[in-house]
Every structure is written in structure tokens, then in C-alpha cells.
């Protein structure tokens, strides 16, 4: 969007150009420079038009897809056993909801993802910090972690089922394992790539080792860490779907497994839609987190095209 970029640059130039001429003035306690600043009104684009475009445009393609889906099924072009119409899926959702199973399955799946993700991401984060800041920890852990990483963790599903049965542990553990590595790698490399000049500032300004880590190293590495978190969430969902589909007694994956046996295409499609809504919500959460934590960053500032 070239136009957007040009307009944004224009705005920032205006803000920087605010007159900031300083003139010395002598007052009681020594010198004081008084600033005469005249604020220029911010240069705004026509806000309603932009808002309209921002909120409407992203929905055009999904709406067209649903419309296509509907017309294909209604016209009888495709058999309802292969592809049920959107309305059928909606009715199925209502039925499952009033039976109380849909809520329960969604909650169970959400619980697994929350638990597994929290476990894996926090382990990856702590391990990543250790490896990023200490060369000893790096020597001890990095090789092993990188080796474990090369194992496709979904290959562990049969082993996990043998070890833990089809209870909660194997699913939570698999999700954790999937979430661990992206967070670990991005945290460790993000920390190692922090500009040493900024760490020098911390040392020159009397910060303790701990303050240097919390006030300089972590904030400086935050952007790559959040990229890792975002990626980890994607991997976590994928892991959950596979794990639940193979071995489960409840959860959305179980819903799918069951539906396949009963040849209920509508339920399978419903589950797919649920998964995608959940993934989209998770992504949205991360975006909010990013725009809050990285609001100082030119690429994440409010209103930036991201």
C-alpha cells in the first residue's frame, strides 16, 4: 500500500518539524532554557473513509467464500453428504450446543491448549533467557535442545499414548513440546542479538546485572520473542488437533473422530471452523499484546499497517 506509507511519512515529518528553537533565559536557579513550541495540528486523513476500508475490506473474501459455499450446496451441484450447506452446519452447531456437548468440547480443548502452551512457552522462555545470557548455560543446553528439536514432535504421539494412555497428560505434553522450541529459539537468539552498545549504556549508568537484563536485554529482545510466541501458538494448535484426533474422549478432536465414524460431514466442518476461529482469536490476542508491548516500535505503533 504505497499510498499509506507516503501518508504516514508525511504525518511523522510534521510532528518532528514542530518548532523547537531554544533560547536561553536566566532565572533564579541558574540557567533555564525555555522552549517556545507551536504545535501544528496533526495532519489527518479522512478518518471515516479509512475506518470503513479497514473494517470492511478484510471481510470481503471470507464473505465471498461463504456465499460460494452456499450457492454450490443449494444448487445441488454437490451432494450434502460430501459438503453440507452452511445452514446445515449452523443447525448442527445449535443442536450440539443445546445438548451441552459443544461447550464442553470447546472448553476441554481450550484448557489443553492453555495449559500446554503455558507450560511449553514458559519453559522455552526461561531456557532461552539462560542460554541467551550465559555462555555456560549455552554450552550445557543448546546442543541437546537443538537435537531434540529435530525430532518431529508429532512422531511422539504413539509413544505418548503408550506411556500415558489417552488421558490429559499426553496432549498437554505434546502441546507444550510444540510450543517450547519456537519460543526457546527466538528468545535465545533475540537476546544474543541485542546491541552490545545498549548493554554498555546499562553498565555505564550503574545498573546491576539483574537490572541490565530486565531493563535493557529483555525489552530489546522483545520483538523477536513475541514473533516466537506467535509461531508457537500456531504449532500448539496444530499439535492439539492431531493429538485429539488420534486419541481422545472429549474435545473438538474427539468430536471430529466421532463424526467421521458416523459419516457426519457437517460436524467435521463445524470442528474445522471452530479450530480456525480459535486460531484467529489467538492471533488477535498476540496482536493486541504486540501493539501494547511494542508501541514504541515504528512498525507496531498504533495505526501502523501491520
Amino acid at each position: 500500500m504505497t499510498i499509506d506509507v507516503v501518508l504516514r511519512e508525511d504525518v511523522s515529518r510534521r510532528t518532528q518539524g514542530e518548532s523547537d528553537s531554544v533560547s536561553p533565559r536566566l532565572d533564579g536557579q541558574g540557567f533555564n532554557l525555555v522552549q517556545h513550541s507551536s504545535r501544528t495540528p496533526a495532519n489527518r486523513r479522512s478518518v471515516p473513509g479509512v475506518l470503513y476500508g479497514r473494517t470492511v475490506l478484510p471481510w470481503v473474501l471470507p464473505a465471498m467464500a461463504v456465499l460460494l459455499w452456499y450457492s454450490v450446496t443449494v444448487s445441488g451441484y454437490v451432494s450434502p453428504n460430501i459438503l453440507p450447506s452452511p445452514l446445515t452446519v449452523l443447525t448442527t452447531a445449535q443442536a450440539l450446543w443445546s445438548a451441552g456437548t459443544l461447550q464442553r468440547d470447546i472448553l476441554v480443548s481450550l484448557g489443553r491448549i492453555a495449559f500446554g502452551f503455558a507450560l511449553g512457552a514458559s519453559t522455552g522462555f526461561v531456557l532461552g533467557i539462560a542460554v541467551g545470557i550465559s555462555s555456560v548455560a549455552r554450552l550445557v543446553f543448546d546442543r541437546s535442545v537443538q537435537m531434540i528439536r529435530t525430532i518431529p514432535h508429532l512422531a511422539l504421539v504413539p509413544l505418548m499414548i503408550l506411556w500415558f494412555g489417552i488421558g490429559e497428560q499426553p496432549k498437554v505434553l505434546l502441546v507444550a513440546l510444540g510450543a517450547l522450541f519456537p519460543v526457546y529459539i527466538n528468545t535465545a537468539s533475540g537476546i544474543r542479538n541485542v546491541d552490545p552498545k545498549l548493554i554498555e549504556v546499562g553498565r555505564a549508568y550503574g545498573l546491576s546485572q539483574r537490572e541490565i537484563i530486565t531493563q535493557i536485554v529483555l525489552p530489546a529482545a522483545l520483538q523477536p520473542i513475541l514473533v516466537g510466541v506467535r509461531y508457537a501458538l500456531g504449532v500448539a494448535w496444530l499439535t492439539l488437533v492431531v493429538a485429539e484426533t488420534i486419541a481422545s474422549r472429549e474435545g473438538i478432536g474427539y468430536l471430529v473422530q466421532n463424526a467421521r465414524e458416523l459419516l457426519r460431514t457437517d460436524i467435521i466442518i463445524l470442528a474445522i471452523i471452530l479450530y480456525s476461529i480459535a486460531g484467529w482469536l489467538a492471533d488477535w490476542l498476540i496482536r493486541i499484546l504486540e501493539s501494547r508491548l511494542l508501541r514504541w516500535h515504528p512498525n507496531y505503533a498504533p495505526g501502523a499497517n501491520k
Partner: protein
Amino acid sequence: MISGADISIRGLSRSYEGRKVLQDINLDIPAGQFVSILGTSGVGKSTLLKILAGVETPTCGDAWASGTKTKPTVRIMFQEDRLLAWRTVLGNVTLGLRHGEPNAMRMLDAVGLAGREHAFPVVLSGGQRQRVALARALVHEPNVLLLDEPFGALDAITRSSMHILLQGLLDHAPRTVLLVTHDVDEALILSDRVLVLTASGIAADITVDVARPRHHSQLAEKKDYLLGLLSGTGTTAQFAQSH
């Protein structure tokens, strides 16, 4: 009343991968003196300041500050502003300060950035960023203040108002200052003593005993001498004769 600290440098050398940058520097700076350091690019001026700030270690020799009751505070304003992008202007100035928010606000006011304390560094101009970095160093009221080309990105008018500000602050609370600059006029207007650093060591060490406020005409001879040294054409002999 904040006082300065004495600085002593003995046999100081620093090399990078076998390439000598600073070679056998010996220097004593008494408390409260304002010293400017001139020298061509790459001669090791920033390296010297970083060693004094304790963020760089000498290959051999030693440099230390002493003469205050407690351990002297040394603060450096780096050549690049090195602002922390994720902290606001105020957050940058309060870096490492324990309870200094009012002081930080007063310092920001003094460098002409009142009203911008909640801005993030990315929206500031080069000169504004430099002034934030200056405030960040000054707010600690250090015994030794190390300034590495602090006014490089400023226009002439802002620059001379910064000179007035700095002198005002130093009159108010004297301390030892080392200023690295490429501007011979700036060095002569501000300092008690001017050093010229070359690859073989300190090539000139002159005292500027002209009363303040100074005028350029009073400094013309010293300026010619220093410019001569810096350009390598050398008018050392003439200067030595006339003094």
C-alpha cells in the same frame, strides 16, 4: 555542592587485534577542570572516554578517578545517543536514577525538551535525541562528566545555547569534565585546558587562561596553533616562540 574528582591516567594503552589505538597515555586532571580533547577521527578519543567510564578495559596501564569522599560517580554521554527505544524520553533520563523524577523533569526542561517527556525516541530529531542523552548524563550530577561529541548534531544557535546551559550548570555545581569535540572554537570557548591526541600520544596540552565570557578574538592565536597541529602542517615552533 557537588565537587569534581581528580583523574589520573598512567601508561595507558589499548590495542584492538594487535592494532595500537592508544599508546602510553599519561595524564593528570585536577578536580573541577574542564578539559577538551581534539584529535583526528579514529585516533582513540572515544576509546579513552569509554575506559574512563569503565565500559572498556585498557590493554595495559591504568585510569582512575579519586578525591571524593565516596566512590566518584562517572557518567558518559556516548558519541551515538544510544537512547533506549522502548523507554520514553523521561524513562531514558531516569535510567539508573533511584528517586530522581523531579530532577529528570527539571533537566529536560533545561535542555529545552519540556513537554516531550512522554514521547518515544523514534519520533525525535537527531538534535533532540542528543539533548535527551545529555540530560541523561547530567541528571546524575556526576563527579566526572564525559561528553563524546555532545553537540555534533545541533545547529549553531542551539549549540551555543547548549554551551551556555552547560556552563551555567557547571558554575552552579563544578565538576571535572572531559569533552571530545572536532570543533576547535567549541574547545577554546568552553575549556580550561585543551589536549590534542595523535597516534603517538598527547601532542599538545595547552591551558586556556582567558576569563569568561570569552570572545573568539582572544583565542585566535591558540586556534591557529591547534588547527595547525590537527592538519599536520605544524606551527609548533612559532607558538612555542610566542609563548
